[in-house]
């Protein structure tokens, strides 16, 4: 149970940062926290009480194991998160080159 609370606490914090902070780097960090929270949630969905890691060792026979599928999902999700983060950081570098500031309030050249 504590895992769900922790995961959604991270999601909440991440979304709050993205919605309210003005510095672009802080927003990107918020994005990262959001991703981490979602990954934590996915893994905790697969947890089985008293289960061990889903890897057989010699001579162990059938033991109760946790669900391997969410772990595979999270593997993919972490990599996707890294890719988005890399692109976001490169856009932040270029934004700084053009505007000289990372304040999102000042970066509003496109009008309605």
């Amino acid at each position: 149970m504590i895992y769900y609370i922790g995961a959604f606490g991270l999601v909440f914090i991440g979304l709050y940062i993205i919605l309210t902070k003005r510095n672009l780097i802080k927003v990107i960090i918020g994005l990262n926290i959001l991703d981490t929270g979602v990954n934590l949630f996915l893994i905790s969905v697969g947890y089985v009480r008293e289960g061990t890691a889903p890897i057989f060792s010699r001579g162990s026979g059938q033991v109760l194991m946790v669900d391997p599928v969410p772990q595979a999902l999270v593997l993919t999700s972490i990599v996707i998160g890294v890719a988005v983060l890399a692109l976001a950081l490169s856009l932040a570098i270029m934004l700084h080159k053009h505007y000289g500031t990372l304040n999102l309030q000042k970066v509003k050249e496109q009008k309605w």
Partner: protein
Amino acid sequence: MVSPVLLIAVPLGLAFAVPLLRLISRRIPKYIPPVAMLFNLVLSVSLMSSTLKEATVVSIGGWDPPFCINLVVDSLSILFSVLIALVGFLVSIYALDYIEMGATENTEKYHMLYLLLLVGATGVVLTGDIFNLFVFFEILCISSYALVAYLGDKAGVESGIKYLIQGAIGSSLILIAIGILYGMFGSLNIADIASNINSIGSIALFIPLALLVTGFGIEGALFPLNGWLPDAHSSAPSSVSAILSGIAIGVGIYAVARVIFTLFGVSSIFPFLAILGVLTLLVGEASAFKQNNLKRMLAYSSIGQIGLIVFGLGIATYHGISGGLFQVVSHALGKSLLFMAAGYMIYRTGSMDISALKGIGERMPLTSIAFTIGAFSLVGLPPFVGFASKFLIIQSALLKQDVLFFVLAVLVLLATVIEVAYFLRVCQIIHFKEGNNQKKEDAPLVALIPMFILVSLIIIIGIYPNLVFDFLNSAASGLLDKLAYIEGVL
């Protein structure tokens, strides 16, 4: 029978091989996207006839569903796949010259990103597994983030970062919903989840549905999630705008439709969908009316058209959904034509303002004719394809014999009037205003050929819509008939 997996595997392999092929000759990379898309087009068209009877289910890795990832190729998927391959092919030919202009260095990265965007789009429409849908959807989104900011100019980077942040929030929401669905049902296969959907109460199901629709709707430009679209589509290079407006939002709407109709299948949401569609339509068209920037106007018009498509889907009858899907086709053909023509017009005049287009009708006659035909088709004038699709949607709304849908249909007609107003204003400036009278200097042949292929398709399908009707009806019934989907897979 060639396996539909090749629709994804071959372009993906070619995209990976581009840096290697570039070692052989510097000029090879720009021909690879047309070749890959031509292959996809031929393969998709050849698969069309077999999917009319029943869906093809291909399992990856040889296991049985639901223990594997499977591709479910029904007529809806093939419709989108043909559309993606066709528009992708034509825009890539257009980009053979368009991207080289003003490029200071090698452009093979653009072609790789472009091809991978199309691979992502094809993967989204072909897959039958919700997490696989998410992965291919991410491929689509991330390559479009990179392509929007490709030129590296001020506007592009700003639009790119805003698009990225909103898109990334959407992806996280989708992932949360997938986690909840996996926890509830224990499987990631769409057919498997759909067959068990009624075992959980509908209150608990509301949140995953809302999260999924919000997440996919950010890419599909539903109101109020479309804040990124005007900036992104207007700051991107024109070939990218063509592909984003024509294909990417259509694929986003496909994902929303697949989730609502096949995965969840709750019918109480349909009137809400129709209202949302008309709201999007009105907001899009009203905002487009006020624009002075040509590409921004076209971007808002895309938002409006998506609203119309969603309205068609929300009618939820056989004819309504056929109308919505037909509108996807006509929007893809028309909007990519408009962006392609606008690209060269903007390049020749050097400005994106509509008022700068004075007299372009004389300087670039063929391009202006193409633009005008695209505009007429989108507005819904006969004998173009836009007329047939809009007519079908409005007719099915009226056939529903419901006060709500009658009111919505009237609002759609009102929005069409606004659309006519701003498109005709642009066409008037192009053709009837006096310009600076410079010499005739039309777009290069490489750009004109795809534009006129689109023009001829718009006219042909507009005059003989029966050519596609069988297919659209089959696709619509595929969407409505959840049980057939489940039985086909499991």
